[in-house]
């Protein structure tokens, strides 16, 4: 029992979807549980065994002072720390507060702002502790999750491509939606979803964040040529990965 590698799953500010991806591995879950010891996974088990852990999967972004302390504790107990999803990797949709006055946000939702303790920003895990690997996506792709766990068990680097969604459209034979007049973030967005939005005849909305060398300015010009207004372009870059440098910079180039 104790010789199996020990896995822990942690949650910060998030929707639970990425850790749900682990339970969504319907075909692999019981096999996985036979080769690793799921030592700490509060969403799935009442057993919360103490560290150290061989691999920690971290979901969610840092939005409270208490969570800054907690992520340091997680890092100190973890041989490998892998972030799962756009919140942990890029700050998530809740990083939209970074562009606003958080007190206005609190007042918009809560009647008694004095009860709410939150930071003015939502930041990725890597802003606070060293991260060994970042899995992209809102949500992550469960096949990528299984690959990352298998890679760390085997002591190798995960085999996950860093190219754009465009390559995935070509791989599945989807006709480019841009050439049909639909604005798409695929050319600047990291692969991993299998290009599902274009396969549904809509443009990619960038939920995997920036690819390795994104030319966002050129894409913005192509959007303008299709009739997109600056407000449309700004909003398109301000979703689940708004706080990543390339997407933040491009959004700021299109007005306040």
């Amino acid at each position, binding site marked *: 029992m104790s010789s199996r590698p020990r896995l822990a799953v942690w949650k*910060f*500010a*998030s*929707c*639970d*979807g*990425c850790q*749900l*991806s682990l*339970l*969504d591995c*319907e*075909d692999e*879950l*019981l096999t996985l*549980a036979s080769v690793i010891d*799921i030592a700490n*996974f*509060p*969403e*799935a*088990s*009442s*057993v*919360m065994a103490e560290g150290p852990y061989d691999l920690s999967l971290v979901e969610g972004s840092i939005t*409270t002072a208490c*969570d800054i302390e907690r992520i340091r504790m997680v890092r100190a107990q973890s041989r490998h720390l892998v972030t799962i999803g756009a919140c942990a990797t890029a700050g*998530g*949709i*809740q990083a*939209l*507060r970074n562009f*606003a006055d*958080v007190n*206005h*946000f*609190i007042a*918009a*939702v*809560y*009647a*008694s702002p004095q*009860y*709410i303790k*939150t930071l003015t920003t939502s930041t990725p895990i890597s802003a606070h502790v060293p991260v060994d690997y970042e899995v992209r996506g*809102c*949500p992550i792709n469960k096949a990528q999750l299984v690959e990352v766990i298998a890679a760390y068990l085997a002591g190798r680097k995960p085999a996950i491509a860093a190219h754009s969604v465009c390559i995935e459209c070509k791989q599945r034979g989807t006709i480019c939606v841009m050439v049909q007049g639909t604005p798409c973030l695929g050319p600047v967005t990291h692969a991993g*979803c299998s290009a*599902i*939005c274009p*396969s*549904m*005849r*809509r443009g990619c*909305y960038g*939920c995997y964040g920036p690819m390795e060398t994104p030319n966002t300015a050129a894409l913005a010009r192509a959007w303008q040529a299709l009739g997109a207004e600056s407000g*449309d372009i700004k*909003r398109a870059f301000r*979703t*689940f990965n708004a706080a990543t440098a390339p997407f933040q910079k491009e959004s700021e180039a299109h007005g306040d």
Partner: protein
Amino acid sequence: MATRTIAVDLLARVEGEGALDLTISDGRVASAQLRIFEPPRFFEAFLRGRGYMETPDLVARICGICPIAYQMSAVQAIENAFGVTVGGQLRALRRLIYCGEWIESHALHVVMLHAPDFLGFPDAIRMAGQHGDRVRNALTLKKAGNELMRVLGGREIHPVNVRPGGFYRVPGRAELAPITESLKRARDIAVDLVRWVATFPFPEFERDYEFVALRHPTEYPITEGRLVSSRGIDINIADYESEFEERHVAHSTALHALIKRRGAYLVGPLARYALNFDRLPAPIQALTREAGLGAVCNNPFRSIVVRAIEIVYACEEALRLIVAYEPPASAAVPLAPRAAAGFGCTEAPRGICWHRYDFAADGSIGKARIVPPTSQNQPSIEADLAAMAATVLDQPDEVIRERCERSIRNYDPCISCSAHFFKLSVNRA
């Protein structure tokens, strides 16, 4: 007299993060508080200024377990504001993908999160050592729900195909055919599941809830209906704010929802079932009798049986919808934005999910208000805790703690949703 404090610092097998504080003073329960410390993410704030077309993609991120519920309540509100009704096969496809979400979410809770409580295991993986076939069947069931989500929505979590007016792309008949086989297998597994969970040992515990759910003239409610209660509320969803209010309490980042004139109420499977038993097909009504349920169930521990019944219903309903499916000529009906308020309310797996948006003339959101199921159930969860703890006060803290945690899991609470929401501490004075 001594004060006993019993605390559960992090509730397990719930979606999101919360805790529980129970204070026992002079031999009675002085307070039971469900503390929700899930950090707020401010959806209603950042939705201001966003466009109606991007709204379903944004609100999906409130919850990874029930994104379709948020998308469906949002598109209904948008269409309501712009004066459009989506009917026919587009409406049928929406109900079909929602059945997928009910199946995957209920299967996850019934077997992976809730059943271990009744059988004395810390989780489903350890439960699989003795009940391997049950767990494997549950995973097959869950997978069938997820398959519906993937085929219709593009993926299981945060589907990409739902849009105001309908869908981006509708499937051909041939694409739905393979799901039929997995749904038939899922239905058979679900019927077995009802019979199995009905044999679990249930604590004798009932409370006199005011149930609140949607009610539709002919259907068991999923995608639409009037808002009704077991004590006489029967209103259009647009009138929610006249009967219900949300209060902000210090111990929770989730707002507490209450009926203005009476207080706590219950949403979710027990409420839907009690208010809509007559809308279940006769063979499923017969199955409920076989499982020992009446037309109303007031024992929250038996919610596991009702959830299993609803899985059977969702499988049957999905199969019926697929048989009747003819691809519509257009994937979406056209929409023209206008300055108006719109209301949406659908039955998420955990209960009604109510949305209101005030749109500007260009279709951008001026104001958003979203009331998730778990925040509505918080006051009832706390009342259950106080009532449940009162029956075991002479027991050691460990027993009280275990019973309280189970009381909370009866609700399948989704804390991530409600904090826009858990930990148990018992104080004995």
